[in-house]
């Protein structure tokens, strides 16, 4: 276990509570007007069985409105959205009843393309028609964890006036399951992640819990002494994930060492009869030097070693030394993770 690292992310305001608010499912249309003037807008229209309609958009705003109770079973709504941003729609019935609230993420479908993100053009309405939302937990399409959020988004054929936007690196739906992050509940405890102090339900509060495997080496970060795979043991203050700064090693040690992996295995863990380099940290430099200056040219590694300068050989050796404990006798890598210092 080690201290939680900085995510390097700065959010100055919250992902709002507006989803839970609302005016009792009826009354007049109450479009949330952006606080700064927007350029041009288009209207998303349609009808629903009484609901709150939200749009989470790439201008970092959430727009919402409520449908109009007009005496029929299909309540019309109009939500004005700015042109030039990509929005994701979520509709909520019984929004004021936590035990019977039904959250339905909307996905647009056109041909074989589906996406929760869409955009529109100013002045051109996007009419969704009647959206058949469910009004109770019992009626929901699929809710395996009983959190009131449909497990899969509800598909609507995209009106021709809407652009279906493909976004793979969707910052609002980071696991790309069509449910925007705001409504995720990882551990199924009916507390959405955004209100849950222990998202994965492992008993460790999120603020101190770091049990991911950032570098995919099979070791959870809590156990891994080099969880960002930067060649330096943790505590080196190099951010992991999120901060997008896994560059380090200015002498190219990581890159130079990776040129050994084709034969000696990824990170020096051999998968063949070729010698592995993990646990050989102390010998790499001297062996490579020996090969470099050998006059026996009928050896593929003697040739390879001649391709590297002395300082490059040192950088390669230093990379492995930092990753594998740095002792001169080689590592005792009992757990197979490449780190013998645990």
């Amino acid at each position: 276990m080690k201290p939680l690292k900085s995510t390097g992310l700065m959010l100055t305001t919250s992902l709002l509570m507006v989803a839970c608010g609302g005016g009792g499912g009826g009354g007049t249309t109450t479009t949330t007007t952006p606080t700064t003037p927007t350029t041009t807008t288009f209207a998303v229209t349609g009808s629903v069985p009484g609901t709150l309609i939200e749009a989470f958009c790439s201008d970092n705003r959430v727009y919402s409105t409520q449908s109009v109770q007009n005496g029929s079973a299909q309540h019309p709504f109009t939500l004005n959205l700015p042109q030039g941003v990509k929005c994701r729609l979520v509709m909520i019935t019984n929004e004021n009843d936590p035990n019977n609230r039904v959250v339905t993420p909307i996905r647009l479908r056109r041909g074989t393309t589906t996406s929760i993100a869409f955009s529109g053009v100013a002045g051109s309405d996007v009419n969704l028609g009647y959206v058949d939302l469910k009004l109770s937990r019992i009626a929901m399409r699929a809710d395996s964890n009983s959190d009131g959020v449909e497990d899969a988004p509800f598909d609507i054929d995209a009106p021709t006036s809407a652009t279906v936007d493909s976004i793979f690196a969707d910052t609002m739906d980071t696991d790309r399951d069509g449910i925007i992050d705001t409504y995720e509940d990882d551990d199924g405890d009916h507390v959405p992640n955004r209100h849950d102090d222990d998202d994965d339900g492992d008993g460790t509060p999120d603020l101190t819990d770091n049990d991911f495997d950032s570098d995919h080496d099979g070791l959870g970060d809590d156990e891994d002494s080099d969880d960002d795979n930067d060649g330096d043991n943790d505590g080196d203050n190099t951010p992991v994930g999120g901060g997008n700064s896994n560059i380090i090693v200015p002498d190219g040690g990581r890159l130079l060492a990776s040129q050994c992996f084709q034969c000696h295995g990824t990170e020096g863990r051999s998968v063949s009869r070729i010698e592995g380099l993990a646990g050989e940290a102390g010998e790499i430099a001297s062996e490579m030097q020996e090969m470099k200056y050998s006059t026996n040219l009928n050896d593929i590694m003697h040739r390879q070693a001649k391709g590297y300068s002395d300082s490059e050989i040192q950088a390669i050796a230093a990379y492995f030394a930092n990753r594998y404990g740095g002792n001169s006798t080689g590592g005792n890598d009992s757990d197979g993770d490449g780190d013998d210092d645990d």
Partner: protein
Amino acid sequence: MNSFNRRQFLKTISLASVAGAFPNIVKAAIIRPHIVVIGGGFAGATAAKYLRHWSTAVDVTLIEVNANYNSCILSNLVLNNQMNLGQITFNYNILAQQYGIRVINDWVNSVDGQNQTISLRNGTTLGYDRLIIAPGVQFLNVAGLDSNRIPHAWKAGTQTTLLQQQLAAMPNNGKFVMTIPAAPYRCPPGPYERACVIADYLRTNKPGATVTILDANADIVAERQTFSQAFNVTYNGIIEYVPNAVLQSVDSDQRIAHTSLGDYRADVLNVIPPQSAGEIIHTTGLANVGGKWAGVNPLSYESTAIANIHVIGDSQGTGQPKAGHIANAEAKVCADAILRLLNNAPPFAAPVTNSACYSPITATTASWLTAVYAYDATTGTMKVVPESSGEATTHTAQNYRRMLDWANSLFADTFA
């Protein structure tokens, strides 16, 4: 489910909400750079893997039209029945599941470098922050050539099987004729290796059969010492090597190669056509080296024609050989550079790539070839470090065993 991303995102949200919320505004969410890789061979698969191996802060999408990849490396051993295709077939499951790479099996119709989008055959358009293109080679037209009957087997798969079947059906005293295009082409020693492997197979299975090599080049392109000895000694009387034989056209019905040195009729004709960078390199406007290959900055493999597009593997035009091992090496330089560039840092200034390969010479022996390339800042090119370039002095059984270890290690470093 990639819970890491979501949890990190949401944890930050909850931290922020403590500071006080302004309900209708969400400030900048996480910007996760999206890198798209086109092509799932040794270059593309390695690049995708190492982007994620080295960084959890980027999203990587790998687009490859085929669900499985047949390695060209070792594929000559399918021709003489020492291996089957399944042993050199790989999929992308580990890259997807263990590295969190999104894999899409589709064909890229077009790349819009201006808007940084690509269009897939299925109608989808994807945006990218950085694009890596690694399509391998495409084969240029040869008059009269029908590769469905006269196989090249220079992309492994059904072509390999077809050539293997034709060899198996060849009569005793038959003639196997193969053509080699002018360099550069994929895998410099590969054609000569193939001639050896097939000669060994014919010697055992088709008495009296011969191999004729029609080489458009003036001399053996790679491992000259090894292959000269093999042709003149090991396969004396079986292999005939003909340099400067430039293929002009093919009679696919009669199995005749029309060359600058005359016509050669074969029982089995193996035409390896001239090659250029993959089609998408040309349609995107990246083929600015002799109209055939993609010019790149070897510090990052970024195209010299269009920003934010990187080209690695056989399509690049740096002068480094076109082969799987060095494609893997280039991919790592490219991935490392992209991660640095996304952080507004320059690429590592002195990258090194290495080329290595083992070539089977008989059913039990092999040779090797290797070279290390270092960046030369004066010319801005990758140059061979002279002493590092060399070949085995003789083919040995030990090298044959090492060949299998080398290949398995390379396969794992690329696909697993």
